[in-house]
Every structure is written in C-alpha cells, then in structure tokens.
C-alpha cells in the first residue's frame, strides 16, 4: 500500500475520532451537569436524548455564516481553523497502544507542549478579528491565563520526564508496564516489572509525581479554558468571550477545538503519569491479569477508558466549582502551583540520583 495513502487514512481517522468524541462529550457534559444539578438534561430527541447533539450539529451546519461588518474579515475567518488545527496536530504524536502511534517522534512530549501553545494565537486572532470589546477582553484574559499556566504545567511535565528519562511518549508509556525492559520499581523499592498493573505507573513509581499530576491537571484545566478557570468565557461578564461573534460551522470548529483539547490534555497526562496504555490490573500469582490484558486492542481500550475518566473529572469539576477571579487565578498559578512544581522537579532529580 502506498505510504501516503496510509498517512492520509490516519489523519482522517484521527479527525473523525475527534469529531465523534466532541459529539459524545457534549452529550455527556449535558447529562453530567443535569445529574449534578438534579435535572434530567436532554430527553426529547432519541432514547434519553441521545440524538440531541447530532440534531444540534445538523442545525449548526445549516446556519448562515455571519461576518460582522466591522470585523477584520481575514482574521475572523482564519481564526477558528487555527484553533482547531493546532489542537488536532497535537494528536499526531500520542501513542494509542504498543506499537500504535501515528508519528513516532523522539521529542513527542516537547512537540505536544509546543503545539498546544499555538492555540493562543488563534484565540487572539478571533478576539481581535471580531472587533468587539467583549471578544477582545475574552481573548486577552484567555491568553494571559494560558501563558501563565504553561509554566507550572511544563515543570510538572519535566519532573515526569526526569523519572522516565525520555521525551518519546511511546518509550515513556512502555516503561510503565510489563513490557518495560529496564524494570520498574514500585515506590523505588520493589521491582514490579514482572507484576505490572497500576503498581508500575509513574505516579506509583515515584509518589511525588502524584502531586505533579495534580498540578498538571489543574494547569491543563486552565489551558482548556474550562471552569473553574473559564474567565475568558465568563457568561455573566463577557457574553461568551472570544467566540461571541461566531456562528454556524465556525462556532462548531471552535467548540470541536475545545472538546478535542480536553481529550488531548487528558491523554497527555495519562501517558506521562497514569501509565498510558498499560493495564491497571497486576499479575497476581498464576492469575496473570496484566499479561492477559496487554496488547494493541487492549492498549486502545485502556487509554480511552482512562482518558474518558479524566474527562469526566474535568466535567465534574466544571459543574461543582465556582469561577476564580483574575487575581485569585494568578495567585494560584504563581504563588502555589509554580513553587510546588519546582519542588516536584527537585525531588525528581534527587529521586533519580538516590533511589533509581
């Protein structure tokens, strides 16, 4: 088979996955919020409202594309594409299972981190292009927040990379399970490379990474612009922030970008800290659960299951926590998360020298 055909096939498969995931996630978000607020959520279209988001997207595709008269037309039209493409490109180097990775880069971690930061340019473009003070304010807030939270996120990621000793996401994932060739130590003491399961995950190999994961998770919420860090969209203050003026398929693209971003940052965290595509079930005596549940198909299953769990936690937090004010947001980032992340990095270095 022509290799270029394979490349295109993989790209299309990833795109359809993000689209289907966004549809599913919007439905899940509405059901989760309904459950938390003691409502029913969408019930009319399909069984338990399951076709509701499909109907929504059909409606959205038919809507007129409105460009405001005062907008900068080029920037306004290009912005949603940049927002979505930057998130979509991040999926290129994330492994889905043993030997199953779209583009095996030996700089995978750094690449994903870089490509996520491109989204802020798209957001600024949307905010400026709309020529609307609410959009501009939303974009400024969003970018200030994304740029600030990149620092604790980056340092938390570095502390995980220091434990794994590699920037290749596939290598990092492999080292956290029974397929590891260099051995994995539970809490740095007990060699569990034959046992596998959750005991070999990075957060259990070096317990301070649990703190690093929490820091990364909080920062990733801010990078997705999700509640409790949704000041860029703050409905009560800014209508809906940088995407106030967008309609139809352009709005759909921004939305698709936001939900794909949730999956992307969740998957990135799972790969670095929570064992990637490795099974959570350990080998117990003759019950070799880890051996039975490791493989390409199982890998895809485990990683999707873990990421969906993380996405569920993101939704759960969104509907239970109130929004942070701008100064609280910056205080949290610079005075709490950044020093803690530095502490994690320090412990990683000491751990690498003394324990491993």
């Amino acid at each position, binding site marked *: 088979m022509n290799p270029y055909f394979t490349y295109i096939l993989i790209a299309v498969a990833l795109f359809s996955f993000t689209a289907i995931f966004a549809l599913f996630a919007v439905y899940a978000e509405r059901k989760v919020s309904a459950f938390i607020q003691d409502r029913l959520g969408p019930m009319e279209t399909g069984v338990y409202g399951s076709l509701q988001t499909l109907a929504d997207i059909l409606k959205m595709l038919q809507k007129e594309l409105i460009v405001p008269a005062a907008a900068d037309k080029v920037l306004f039209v290009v912005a949603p594409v940049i927002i979505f493409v930057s998130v979509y490109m991040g999926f290129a180097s994330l492994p889905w299972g043993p030997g199953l990775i779209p583009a095996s880069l030996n*700089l995978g971690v*750094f690449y994903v981190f870089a490509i996520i930061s491109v989204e802020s340019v798209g957001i600024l473009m949307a905010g*400026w292009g709309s020529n609307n003070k609410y959009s501009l304010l939303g974009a400024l807030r969003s970018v200030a927040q994304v740029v600030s939270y990149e620092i604790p996120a980056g340092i938390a990621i570095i502390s995980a990379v220091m434990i794994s000793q590699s920037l290749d996401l596939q290598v990092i994932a492999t080292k956290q399970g029974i397929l590891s060739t260099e051995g994995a130590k539970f809490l740095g003491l007990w060699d569990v490379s034959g046992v596998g399961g959750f005991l070999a995950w990075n957060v259990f190999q070096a317990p301070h990474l649990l703190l690093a994961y929490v820091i990364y998770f909080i920062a990733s919420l801010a990078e997705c612009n999700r509640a409790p860090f949704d000041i860029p969209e703050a409905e009560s203050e800014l209508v809906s922030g940088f995407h106030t003026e967008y309609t139809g398929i352009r709005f759909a693209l921004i939305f698709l970008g936001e939900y794909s971003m949730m999956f992307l940052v969740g998957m990135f965290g799972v790969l670095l800290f929570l064992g990637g595509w490795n099974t959570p079930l350990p080998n117990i005596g003759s019950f070799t659960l880890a051996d039975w549940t490791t493989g390409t198909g199982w890998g895809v299953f485990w990683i999707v299951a873990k990421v969906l769990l993380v996405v569920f936690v993101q939704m759960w937090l969104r509907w239970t926590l109130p929004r942070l004010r701008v100064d609280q947001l910056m205080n949290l980032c610079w005075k709490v998360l950044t020093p803690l992340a530095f502490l994690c990095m320090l412990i990683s270095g000491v751990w690498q020298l003394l324990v491993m």
Partner: protein
Amino acid sequence: MNIEQIVFYFLSAVVLVSALLVVAMKNLVRSIFLFFLTLFSMAGLFVFALADFVAITQVVVYVGGVLVLMIFAFLLSNRDILNNPDAVKINGKFLTAHHLPGLVVSFLFFTALMFAFSQFQVDELEWIAASEGNTLSPSDNTIELLGINIMTRYLLPFETISVLLMLALIGAAHLARKERKI
C-alpha cells in the same frame, strides 16, 4: 522532483513571501499575524535540516512566547493608530533628511552582506570539508547529543544565558512592582 523537495520549496516560498508581506503590509495587526506564518514555516525548514529540537523550540519560544507578547502590545495600544498608520504622518517622501540614518544603516548592512556573500566559498571552508561523512539520519536521537553537549562542552555559555534571563526576570518584577510608600 520528489515530495520532500516539493515541500521544501513550498515552505521556503511561504517564508519568503510572508516575510516580505510582513514588512510591506500597512495593517500592523495583520502583519503580526502573518509573522506567525513566517515563523511556523521556518520551523518546518528546521525540520528539513534534521534540527527537530530547534524547530520545536522555535514554535515554543517565538510562536507561544514572543509573538503572543507582540500581539499583546498591539492589542493594548491605540486602535486608531493601528488602523490608519498614515494618520501619524512623519513625511511622505522616501528620500528625506528624516530617513537618512535609516537609509545609511540599511545600505551599509546590505553592502556588508553582499561582500560576505561574494567572498563566501562553501567548498573551501575547513570545518565543512572535515565534516564530510559525518551525517545524521532522520531517526537519530539528536536530543541526547544536544543535552550532553550543553551540559559539558557548552556549559559556560548555557549558564551565562540562564543568569541573563534571571536578570531580565528580576528586572521585570522590579518594574512591575508597586512603589512602596516611605
């Protein structure tokens, strides 16, 4: 012509055209956003030179950092000046006393570049001749070599740069601090 060459020429063309447009464009905000295109295609060219670490650093530092800061500076300044830069008239003519320093500097720089270009012979350079056969393949792990070199051979420049950045950080924090009442 294989596909690598096509992609390479396409990226180079994008870099050149967008860089020219960045300079020539009247609309400052659009030209800044075009600069994004220039930097991103530059990153693509770095990938073709097998410098993938440099390419990604380019995206992190320039696109995620410098460019966003530049856009911030624009967005926080006066919109009228941005939209019609002609309103702030200096002098319409090209050859005036006002433009003289700029013209002299750019002419001198251009002459220096042309001189260097005319004197430059790639094949006779010693270190290029010596490095024949010393090539990288796309699957090589360059990051390990980079890390080892930075921490051994180039440690002093690396640490000097960190001190410089630290100074910049402290300076910025000092400038942004509230004046204490005495």
